[in-house]
């Protein structure tokens, strides 16, 4: 019999920070006082901060225990769709900790920070090569900020030509950040439907695109894990009517070395370094969302930008068309160090990473489509999406299915996204998952499909092995308690 990872064992409770400790403890070494104390104007001084006082071992135990309540990529298979939960190499974390990087002040005189500037300059070049685009800004701090930056660029482009275009086309398969970023930029979102093959039909764009439309946001490969096969034709239509094409490249992990993004007719693209380029997700960030553009949009990129002259790197802000800053400094430098390290470690083998990611997804898709309803039965890219059609007869939800997966020791896939698939179960098994890992996942999903029929309550009350069982999200939202 297959041994799955899910089991129970001793896991330690831990109170809230302020339920621990005792006034007067201190878990940090304070430097010796070597200067006199200077009186402070009374009216400035506040109450002593109401924070708990703990010893170092109190703190260590608190967070050691908390950490063990979490499931990470290092814990096991994490096939979370739209998230590219690939292995995050430890060596890259080490590079980011190097004193010269970690300790560098962002305002160091240029001659005092050449290594950091060079790294950024080279990383831009590497990303340009991987995408085929002409210029890159590393400033956006995450994918969504990359999208916003892209929208601002498109806006600025139209403005520079004296136009104000107030609408943007966004397909129904788009990630929620897409319409939100467009809205933040003051654009009205024109929703278009993907077709029965899960992609955008050029006719729809032809009908929608006009002079009031600034452009289109396409995710490619899209959130159904499908390549937008008509992207060239679509880009043609948009361009011919004065619009620009924005590509959400968060799914770049599917196509490195296989697709020339610039050849797909797009003008702006953002990447998620915390997905494709293996930087750890950190329980929700920090990330980095570089923006890549074709040459005609380079003047609009946020500043400052790193330039090189006679082998000396410096920061330049003299781009009058620039949209300005989107970050207080230059972006998530520590994340850039990791992504740069990853790219150098993989080199041209990045192509193989994409190939294997796509192989993994298709393998899972082919095997699971026998037991779950595959939303679009065709070859996929890096992820595949199932619907809840086969579950309904058992009155079991997609959520029930993936919660049950926890009991098998596997992290749930993404559910209920993309919205176009009823009860979507979105599975992304990145290239760092081995066939053995996938076989375990597939077998668990098969058993759960059986359980859905034979013991649906098992699913409805799942998970049973975790430290807490299903949580009451409704009452959490109804009477929110957000601080203690």
């Amino acid at each position: 019999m297959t041994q799955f990872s899910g089991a129970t064992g001793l896991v330690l409770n831990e109170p809230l920070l302020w339920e621990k400790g005792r006034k007067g403890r201190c878990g940090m070494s304070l430097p010796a006082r070597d200067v006199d104390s200077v009186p402070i104007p009374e009216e400035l001084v506040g109450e002593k901060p109401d924070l708990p006082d703990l010893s170092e071992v109190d703190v260590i135990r608190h967070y050691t225990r908390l950490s063990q309540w979490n499931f990470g990529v290092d814990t096991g298979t994490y096939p979370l769709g739209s998230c590219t939960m690939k292995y995050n190499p430890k060596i890259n974390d080490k590079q980011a900790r190097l004193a010269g990087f970690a300790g560098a002040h962002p305002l160091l005189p240029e001659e005092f920070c050449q290594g950091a500037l060079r790294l950024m300059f080279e990383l831009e070049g590497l990303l340009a090569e991987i995408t085929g685009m002409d210029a890159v800004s590393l400033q956006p701090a995450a994918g969504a900020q990359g999208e916003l930056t892209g929208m601002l660029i498109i806006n600025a482009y139209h403005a520079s030509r004296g136009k104000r275009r107030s609408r943007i086309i966004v397909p129904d398969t788009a990630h929620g950040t897409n319409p939100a970023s467009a809205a933040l930029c003051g654009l009205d979102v024109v929703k278009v439907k993907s077709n029965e093959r899960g992609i955008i039909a050029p006719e729809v764009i032809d009908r929608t695109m006009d002079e009031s439309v600034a452009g289109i946001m396409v995710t490619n490969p899209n959130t159904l894990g499908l390549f937008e096969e008509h992207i060239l034709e679509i880009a043609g239509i948009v361009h011919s009517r004065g619009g620009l094409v924005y590509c959400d490249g968060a799914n770049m992990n599917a196509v490195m070395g296989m697709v020339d993004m610039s050849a797909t007719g797009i003008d702006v693209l953002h990447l998620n370094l915390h997905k494709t380029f293996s930087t750890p997700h950190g329980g929700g960030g920090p990330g980095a969302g570089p923006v890549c553009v074709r040459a005609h949009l380079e003047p609009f990129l946020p500043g400052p930008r790193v330039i090189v002259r006679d082998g000396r790197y410096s920061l330049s802000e003299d781009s009058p068309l620039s949209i300005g800053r989107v970050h207080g400094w230059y972006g998530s430098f520590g994340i850039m160090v990791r992504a740069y390290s990853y790219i150098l470690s993989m080199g041209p083998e990045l192509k193989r990473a994409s190939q294997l990611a796509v192989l993994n997804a298709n393998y899972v898709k082919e095997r699971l489509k026998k037991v779950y309803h595959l939303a679009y039965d065709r070859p996929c890219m890096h992820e595949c999406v199932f619907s809840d059609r086969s579950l309904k007869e058992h009155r079991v939800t997609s959520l029930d299915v993936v919660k049950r997966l926890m009991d098998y020791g596997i992290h749930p896939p993404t559910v209920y996204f993309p919205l176009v698939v009823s009860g979507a179960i979105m599975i992304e098994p990145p290239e760092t998952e081995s066939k053995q890992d996938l076989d375990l996942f597939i077998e668990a999903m098969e058993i759960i499909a059986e359980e859905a029929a034979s013991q649906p309550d098992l699913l409805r009350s799942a998970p049973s092995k975790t430290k807490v069982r299903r949580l009451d999200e409704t009452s959490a939202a109804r009477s929110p308690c957000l601080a203690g």
Partner: protein
Amino acid sequence: MRYLPHTDDEIREMLEVVGNRDLDELFAGVPEGCRRKEALRLPGPLTEWELNEHMAALAREPAVSPDYQVYLGAGSYEHHIPESVSYLLGRSEFSTSYTPYQPEVSQGTLQAIYEYQSLMCRLLGMEVANASLYDGASALAEAVLMAIRITGKGTVALSNAINPSYRQVVRTYLSPTGYAVKELPYLQDGRTDMTSVQGVTDLAAVVLQSPNFFGCVEELQQGAQAAHSEGALFVTAFSEPLAYGLFKNPGGQDADIVCGEGQSFGMPRSFGGPGLGILAGRMAHVRNLPGRLVGLTKDLDGKRGFVLTLATREQHIRREKATSNICTNNSLCALNAAMYLASVGGTGLRELALLNRDKCEYLKRELTAAGFPVTFSGPTFNEFVCELPSAVHRRLLQKKIVAGLPLGRYYPELEGHSLICVTEVRTRAQMDTLIKELRS
């Protein structure tokens, strides 16, 4: 390649299941015109050892402690970071997990972020803090947008003594939507002139930074009055939250929205990022707050637990109607701040803050005595502006001392002035060396 587990055999077995002859065939659906024709022209692959060498060479260049003495602050601060915090933060259950959408397997992150939110509220004197934003600059932009949403008005008054980068980011965020920004001048004492707030129409928010870019502590209570009397919200920003270990917090001075940068709480400077965008407000405004929130709840058995909550404010539910587009935030940095604050504690934070101020006062006094007078009379925390001709600044660079940030680039009227920062990491001996060099 050690990150790719597939052996040739396995690839064959899998291709068979998939029904493809080779890996390339998996991409048959990609139109010919979109295909990449040549191989990736990338260096490498480097071995782990080649990478180490390469990175060590790059990292050797930036000027850092202890070889250099860097008196730069201006939004990024050198503070001691306990090794215990670095160790804990490196535990991969924290670093390699995704956003805690699945609470049953994410209680570690969730409790920790709930604690972070709570610590922020306590420190800043606010009712609710979100689970983080990208950095201080975008936190300010979000705060301003939030004030605009709440008030339904379209003009914001920003002090000119707010960190210039933060102001630039606000302008970038506001530019396409046509909201107006009015800048408030600073006074001789380095604080903001609040008189110009009067009578501004359609005013959504008045924004002060405290300590401000010049290191001066603003009179927040007055700022609040000025804002409120115009029907605007009072937004305060900060780049050095350690100041609130000592000074009255913004909540206690009637701030409506508080935002800023949390890098000081245990994060390395890391050439400017990642940092921590902090945003806090009133519960009455919670539905207008951008970003994630962790809330307390119970599980099926009545056990305490935590979940992401009030998600209807967020993009993945509300899409174009969300309060913000933010998705990935700076969660691990929030955790970092919480670990740091847990380590230093309330008592320790007060002591540490005092040490920052006292050391800074020491250098102020010594600089003045050495003929480099302090520019502004307003009270400061661990930064201040003084006269320091740029030739002197350049000379000191050769001695491996960065004597603060020359301000001429940001404020032409302050050419020949430098913004100097002194934290607990600076010893008196180092400051005496600086003075000696200045006198020589």
